[in-house]
């Protein structure tokens, strides 16, 4: 789907309070699930809730490396049926970026 078109549509059809609330809740569920997966699969010694949505996962952020990326790539494909390719590695930037990518590509 064209993201620009998506944005336009969002702009023209205003969501009701209820819809917005549901959407936000769904989003929070997804980010919490992603955090739980990261902590469990990579054996991190921390509470999933301590990871913030925009914290960089690699390098200075959470300190993940390319070997962890391979692990995440496999688990995301298994859990969500969404494949990440070599040329869009920026998806691993943060929990929010991962959530965006999953929502965009998930098969309903």
């Amino acid at each position, binding site marked *: 789907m064209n993201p620009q078109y998506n944005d336009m549509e969002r702009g023209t059809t205003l969501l009701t309070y209820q819809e917005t609330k549901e959407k936000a809740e769904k989003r929070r569920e997804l980010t919490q699930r992603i955090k739980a997966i990261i902590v469990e699969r990579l054996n991190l010694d921390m509470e999933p809730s301590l990871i913030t949505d925009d914290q960089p996962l690699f390098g200075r952020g959470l300190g993940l490396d390319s*070997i962890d*990326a*391979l*692990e995440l*790539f*496999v688990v995301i494909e298994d859990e969500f049926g969404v494949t990440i390719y*070599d040329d869009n*590695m920026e998806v691993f930037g943060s929990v929010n970026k991962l959530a965006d990518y999953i929502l965009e590509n998930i098969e309903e």
Partner: protein
Amino acid sequence: MTVMNADEIRKLLPHRWPFLLLDRVTELKPGVSGVGIKNVTISEPFFEGHFPNESIMPGVLIVEALAQMTAVVYCTGALQAMREAEQEAAATAELQVESVEEVDVSSRVGYLVAIRDMKFMKPVVPGDQLLLKVKIGRSLGILSKVNVAAYVGKECVVEGTLSVSQRP
């Protein structure tokens, strides 16, 4: 059945005694999967110290044997891809390309980057024949997951996942 004997394996892998832990390849799908054999004898140098009173093959060496089998699958896959590219180049243009036979294949053996969820179900002792089964899984960039298992007879003795890296 033999797909590759020990001499052919030595041509492919850079490993040598006492660290070449693969005697024979019995099944091979280049770049995809394979099965190999490692015969364990009391003459193995590691039994001297592991342990003086109880001969058990170190688990890490079984993992190494599985990694060497993985290297065979990887290298033959790379070799096949190079051959195909060579044939294609020869078919489209009359150009002289570097012959695959001249490439030192052993220099293409990658590195082991992760060992995950490895289980050692039963000690491996002199007289056992290890059946080493490997299957290359999903890849991201130069990294790939490999599902590995070692059997003695029908019994699974080691099972787990490796991650390997191509040589950059």
